[in-house]
């Protein structure tokens, strides 16, 4: 394992990495440079004019972008704990050799394999105030019709719930993998010390899983900041939903905002500036993750 590869003279190895290097240079680095440059321009499809930092002033002066940032945070606030809770619970329910275990895993993964756009179509229907399944179910308990998608306070948790429903299987697989890689001897030792199931859970399983739980939290957080498909499919076709309506729509989420300002209103400069600001937020999150996890992180805490 420790060997560092064979020595080869000449350009051979560089030819192997060439396709990847060229592709990433164009669609990664050049694109990044391009979007950064564009954020200093007032740019439509046809014209382009240098405006300095105007786009950045614009997005911080007008409250829309900041409010969409708050909405995104609000979404993350719902989606991250929900994802974690569902994934962990499923993994704990399934990690022992259970009958039909494969079948259950298959069922829970089905939503993950389905595309978010179609899942969102179903959930819009399920949460429809008049004919939706959820209000029908609540009606059985005498609860009146709730307008799920009228205000962002409710609409965003609904989208977050859909996200948790969809990624439940993903979380489960991640945590199952982690639980199964805990050495059996640790549990046997705990048994010898007279631990019961609950003690084992709190004093052995949870502490050992801490790093992976943290890892999953960070993944969910970053995914939450990039949510797009779900919001798009939830909003598309809402009556009066022109591109300008993002400023009044109940669900303003950053990535959707960036998309609409760019491809709905053709203000590519402003859209780029928003993208750069959001990217900075994501980078800060990632740096925090590295900082909190430390360098020699291993998800079982062993080296």
């Amino acid at each position, binding site marked *: 394992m420790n*060997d560092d590869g064979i020595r080869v003279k000449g350009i051979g190895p560089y030819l192997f990495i060439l396709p*990847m290097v060229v592709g990433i240079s164009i*669609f990664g680095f050049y694109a990044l440079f391009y979007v950064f440059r564009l954020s200093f321009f007032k740019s439509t499809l046809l014209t382009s004019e240098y405006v300095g930092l105007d786009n950045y002033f614009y997005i911080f002066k007008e409250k829309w972008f900041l409010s969409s940032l708050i909405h995104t945070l609000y979404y993350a606030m719902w989606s991250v704990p929900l994802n974690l809770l569902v994934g962990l619970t499923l993994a704990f329910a399934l990690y022992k050799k259970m009958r039909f275990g494969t079948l259950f895993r298959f069922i829970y993964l089905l*939503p993950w394999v389905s595309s978010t756009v179609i899942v969102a179509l179903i959930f819009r*229907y399920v949460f429809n105030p008049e004919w939706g399944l959820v209000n029908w179910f609540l009606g059985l308990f005498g609860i009146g019709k709730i307008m799920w998608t009228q205000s962002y306070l409710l609409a965003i948790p609904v989208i977050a719930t859909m996200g948790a429903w969809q990624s439940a299987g993903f979380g489960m*697989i991640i945590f199952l993998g982690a639980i199964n890689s805990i050495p059996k001897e640790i549990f046997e030792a705990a048994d010898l010390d007279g631990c019961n199931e609950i003690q084992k859970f709190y004093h052995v399983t949870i502490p050992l899983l801490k790093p992976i739980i943290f890892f999953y939290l960070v993944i969910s957080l970053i995914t939450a900041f990039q949510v797009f498909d779900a919001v798009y499919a939830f909003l598309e076709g809402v009556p009066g939903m022109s591109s300008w309506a993002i400023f009044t729509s109940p669900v303003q989420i950053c990535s959707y905002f960036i998309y609409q300002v760019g491809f709905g209103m053709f203000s590519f400069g402003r859209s780029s500036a928003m993208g750069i600001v959001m990217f900075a937020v994501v980078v800060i999150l990632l740096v925090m993750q590295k900082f909190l996890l430390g360098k020699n992180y291993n998800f079982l805490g062993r080296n």
Partner: protein
Amino acid sequence: MKLKLTFNYLFLIVFAIVALFPFYWMFTTAFSQHTFISDPQIIPIPFYSGAIRDVVFRHSFLRWIFNTALITGIAAIGNVLVASLAAFAFACIRFKGRDLIFYVLLSTMILPGFLMIVPRFFIMAKLGWLDTYQGVFVVFWFVMFSTFLLRQYYLSISSDTLNAARIDGCSLWKMYTKLILPMSKPVLLTLFIIRFVQVWNSFLWPVIVLRSNQMKTLTVGMSEFYGIYMTEYNKIMAGGLISLIPIILIFIFFAKQIEKGLQFQLKT
């Protein structure tokens, strides 16, 4: 202990119902005569296929499925190939600047999708690739996650094996095609499947590149259904049902690979 197990199964079953019910709801609505169903039915009675027929004849689902399959297939194969070429070099060969290049490339993994859509759109416009297949699939080739993953796998190949092959007169290219590719078939297949599912369901990039109806992928086509049908839920669900069939078939055949592929995420 027995009580706990019963409880466990009960939980699993309840959650399985939660996971499946929206699909079932979609299914019954798609075969319903009414534009929506107001309470759950076990079997849609009367069984009505009008909504399905209506939707199938009005939209080019076959074309959309073909588009999606073509784009996804080329995207996933291309990504696996480009990534395995690079991963072989990064893992098995020592050359100048190797680690630096690798980590610089790897840093692109943090670039979020919403940041890349505008500049890539302009690049595609310059190349004249808007509304074409290659405009969509080419960007999916250059995903460093795949390289990272394969490199982890190739690192376990010992240099002795490769050196022995070299003494036998094997060129690097032959080593790659005759040794590396055959021995890493399972991991390549897993990677291919997981990338396939991801690209198949991707939306943000295709919706920007593809404009004309004949070029649309399933996700792009389906995203417009609410705008077209408003509250005719049976037709919306009929469309959803048709577009889910291919990927669910793939899932049934490759469930094991998909599960393994998801666990790869742990290693990154």
